[in-house]
């Protein structure tokens, strides 16, 4: 094979790895929207909090990395519940635009609070995973780990949603909230559960991102918008749609970046997003 093809293949495979991570990030946001009908605009800032949690527990308090990561998942899950109880619940009956604005407010609040608490420095876990060579191609082990964990997380979520009573209730509530009490389900409790799960997914995403990127108060801005656009492109609330969209988006970024220039990947991906909004405004698997 020509060298050119090998590197194209490498770009495609890297896109696949990135796609798995983006799919995990979009899953939590889609879950929340599907169940509660509210978009957590501040979702990536929850991830930022999780990244700081891993950093501080591991680097400052010398916890073993895996323990720090497990704690971060729990911490962000609790943050999700707090966000729901104190910010979302009071505006559940409000206009969608107000719900959007209030979670947007939380975005900037968390960013400002993180700046205050942690400063603007970029912080690094100091863990470097080797890169793995496969013939002439090389892949970062961190990405490979992120991909595998993300897939495992999504598989776990899929099994939970499709097999368990609570998971079925989570899917049912988005289809008919009003009759849930007739099934013996308290919608308020399902909302709390979904918020905890959404938070836990954000926490898991944080663990995977902190292996690859430095954390700083504004890091949410570098993948929050992408996560949101992926959800919209897949069809807001459609977890399967988000999954597909994440891989499509990642290929644009990775292959586009390889064929032209790194920044071009993003330009192409967002142009594709805009085109999709004309062609299929409800998203790939969206209803309405």
């Amino acid at each position, binding site marked *: 094979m020509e060298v050119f093809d090998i590197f194209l293949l490498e770009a495609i495979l890297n896109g696949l790895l990135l796609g798995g991570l983006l799919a995990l990030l979009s899953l939590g946001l889609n879950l929340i929207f599907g169940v509660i009908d509210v978009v957590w605009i501040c979702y990536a800032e929850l991830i930022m909090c999780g990244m700081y949690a891993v950093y501080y527990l591991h680097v400052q308090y010398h916890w073993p990395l895996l323990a720090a990561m497990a704690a971060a998942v729990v911490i962000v899950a609790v943050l999700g519940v707090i966000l729901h109880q104190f910010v979302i619940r009071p505006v559940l009956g409000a206009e969608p635009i107000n719900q959007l604005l209030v979670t947007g407010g939380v975005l900037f609040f968390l960013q400002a609070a993180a700046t205050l608490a942690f400063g603007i420095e970029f912080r690094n876990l100091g863990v470097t995973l080797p890169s793995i060579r496969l013939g002439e191609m090389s892949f970062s082990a961190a990405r490979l780990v992120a991909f595998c964990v993300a897939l495992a997380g999504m598989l776990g979520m899929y099994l939970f949603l499709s097999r368990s*009573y609570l998971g*079925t*209730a989570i*899917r*049912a509530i988005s*289809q*008919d909230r*009003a*009759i*849930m*009490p*007739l*099934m*013996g*389900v*308290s919608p308020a409790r399902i909302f709390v559960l979904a918020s905890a799960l959404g938070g836990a997914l954000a926490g898991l995403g944080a663990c995977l991102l902190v292996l690859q990127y430095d954390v700083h108060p504004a890091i949410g801005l570098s993948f929050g918008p992408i996560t949101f656009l992926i959800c919209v492109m897949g069809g807001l609330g459609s977890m399967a749609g988000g999954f597909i969209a994440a891989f499509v988006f990642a290929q644009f970024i990775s292959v586009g970046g390889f064929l032209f220039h790194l920044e071009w990947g993003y330009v192409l991906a967002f142009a594709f997003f805009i085109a999709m909004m004309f062609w299929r405004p409800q998203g790939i698997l969206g209803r309405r």
Partner: protein
Amino acid sequence: MQMLSLTKVCAGYSGFQALFEVSVEVEAGEAVAVIGPNGAGKTTLLRVISKLIGATSGEIRMEGASLARVPAHEVVSRGIAHVPENRRLFPRLTVEENLRMGAFPRAARKRYGERLEFVYGLFPRLEERRGQPAGTLSGGEQQMCAIGRALMSGPKLLLLDEPSAGLAPVVVQAIFDLVRRICAQGYTVLIVEQNIRQVLKVVGRAYLLEAGRIRLAGNSREFLDSQEIRKTYLGL
């Protein structure tokens, strides 16, 4: 033994009263109908029993115990299953997932397997379509699925809100046969219907609800013989 009793229950929607001092009693093992014109408050009556809306005054008792302090999502654990107006299946869940939702209460989960078998025995059509999204079923099948979902909780009292509404005449017949079979199984049934002639053949007693008030109560024979019912509701 008394299964359900409502004593002078008032209820409504913000600023609008739909039920005025309604008293209804259902004995264990009985099938009772509530009939009345559109907008009389029949659906509201069932909603207030399953606590989807609160009563503003009056008392509701299930097997002698007041439901006043029972939250809506625990009513089903007291033995009351409500098949709502227009069936209200979860359209994108499969038939079997809809049935699983009916078995959500903890006590019902333990007996999921045996009740699923019972429901599929009652409705073989549902078993054939178990993996299909409920939204793709025909109207009659959807009604069966809605009733099956309610039976999955193992209720003592079944509340049925116009199960024959919107169905083709042949299917209506099938649904009433089914209600008769369910009554014969020993379930206590409180059924709301507009199809008065048919429902009076199935139940032993009935109430006439008009404009939120009970106008008439009696056994089916008395209803069929009543001048008022014959003129206004049976067109005789």
